């Protein structure tokens, strides 16, 4: 049994530590906020200019001046601070954010990441993704292990090298998929290592669905 989206988010939440400042991307990464362990203090950063992001507002209490980077209405917390976009990316680029969890289209075995454009399709832009992966201390990707194509076939997303335009080079530290967890030695020669299997998933299944080279060191 492969992991569900929520199980992937729950696994990603294990990378949180008390006192961390964290930026969560759209999609599965957003779900990670549901799995912050009791008693642990984690401040969520929203790159449009806020630290200490609270939950969605109650109906009728939406404030148009209070949104997250996905343009969704949110709420503040007692710890909240607001700041400009340049201050926000100053804390991102300056390495002050501990952890960034985001989605991906492709990840290469050396930590290269592609998640912002598909040539020939309407390009929406990279938003803050390039800044986040270049500046945040630890970058965790959460994604489906393979891409499902329109004709029903599957394409590998963990590759030797990305063929889509890159978001960053040698930036990814960890990849959590529905099948397992990989670490990447992005600055060294260590390459990619499979460290955990999802419940009921075999090494063989992962091997068959992964194009990039990886070592196995299950823990």
């Amino acid at each position, binding site marked *: 049994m492969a992991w569900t989206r929520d199980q992937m988010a729950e696994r990603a939440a294990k990378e949180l530590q008390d006192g961390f400042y964290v930026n969560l991307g759209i999609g599965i990464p957003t779900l990670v906020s549901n799995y912050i362990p009791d008693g642990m203090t984690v401040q969520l950063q929203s790159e449009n200019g806020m630290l200490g992001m609270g939950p969605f507002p109650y109906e009728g209490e939406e404030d148009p001046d209070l949104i997250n980077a996905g343009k969704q*209405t949110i709420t503040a917390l007692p710890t909240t601070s607001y700041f400009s976009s340049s201050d926000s990316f100053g804390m991102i680029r300056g390495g002050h954010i501990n952890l960034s969890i985001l989605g991906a289209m492709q990840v290469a075995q050396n930590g290269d990441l592609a998640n912002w454009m598909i040539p020939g399709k309407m390009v929406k832009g990279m*938003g803050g993704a390039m800044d986040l992966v270049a500046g945040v201390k630890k970058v965790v990707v959460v994604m489906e292990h393979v891409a499902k194509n329109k004709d029903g076939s599957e394409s590998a997303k963990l590759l030797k090298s990305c063929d889509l335009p890159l978001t960053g080079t040698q930036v990814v530290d960890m990849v959590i998929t529905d099948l397992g967890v990989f670490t990447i030695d992005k600055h060294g020669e260590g390459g990619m290592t499979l460290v955990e299997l999802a419940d009921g998933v075999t090494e063989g299944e992962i091997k068959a669905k992964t194009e990039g080279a990886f070592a196995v060191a299950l823990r």
Partner: protein
Amino acid sequence: MKKVHPDPKAALDGLLHDGMTIMAGGFGLCGIPDELIAAIQASGVKDLTVISNNAGVDGVGLGKLLETRQIRKMISSYVGENKEFARQYLGGELEIEFNPQGTLAERIRAGGAGIPAFYTKTGYGTQVAEGKETKEFDGHHYVMERGLFADLAIVHAYQGDTEGNLIYRKTARNFNPMMATAAKVTVAQVEHLVQPGELDADFIHTPGIFIKRIIHVPVREKQIEQRTTRKRKDAAPAAAGGGAV
């Protein structure tokens, strides 16, 4: 010198010309200078280069200027929510220069602070770095990015005084403070216009030196792009994550 003008049209009088570069504050529809955008639309000025993080949505914010084809080029980080934008872009009628959001913010900050260029790690080894100078510092690779300076900046603030001192509200601050510093002329629209001394000088975000003209815009219903809520009976907090975009 009087900075206060009676309405958006008067505040933009003599400032607009075809082919000019305009910075517009806001993130999505949050903190956008919508009244000033409407006045720019009404003026009919065209061939504009507009620097703004997003391009509004259809018919709202900068979406207004797209509908009337007054924009020739956008410099933005994300333009996902605008069908008219996509149509003009794919049809070759509109040029777009994508900047990483933090690089865009810093280019504007640098432009306003008299810094012609700076180095950043962001985008090294990607399309964004193509044709740009790169340099190694302390074993890390950086891309050189240029400062941005516009003919006109339009910003939205919550409070302002007649001297042009501004205070923004919550996440409606976003790109407004940097843009206020990075143009030959900056025009601010404020929800509450007060007399000097009524704002706490310790809490002013944009000092009046950056604001040449200011208008009071009546408080009205602000637009929400993604209305997300939780039910009152919910005991557990709903997810409210940020976004990579």
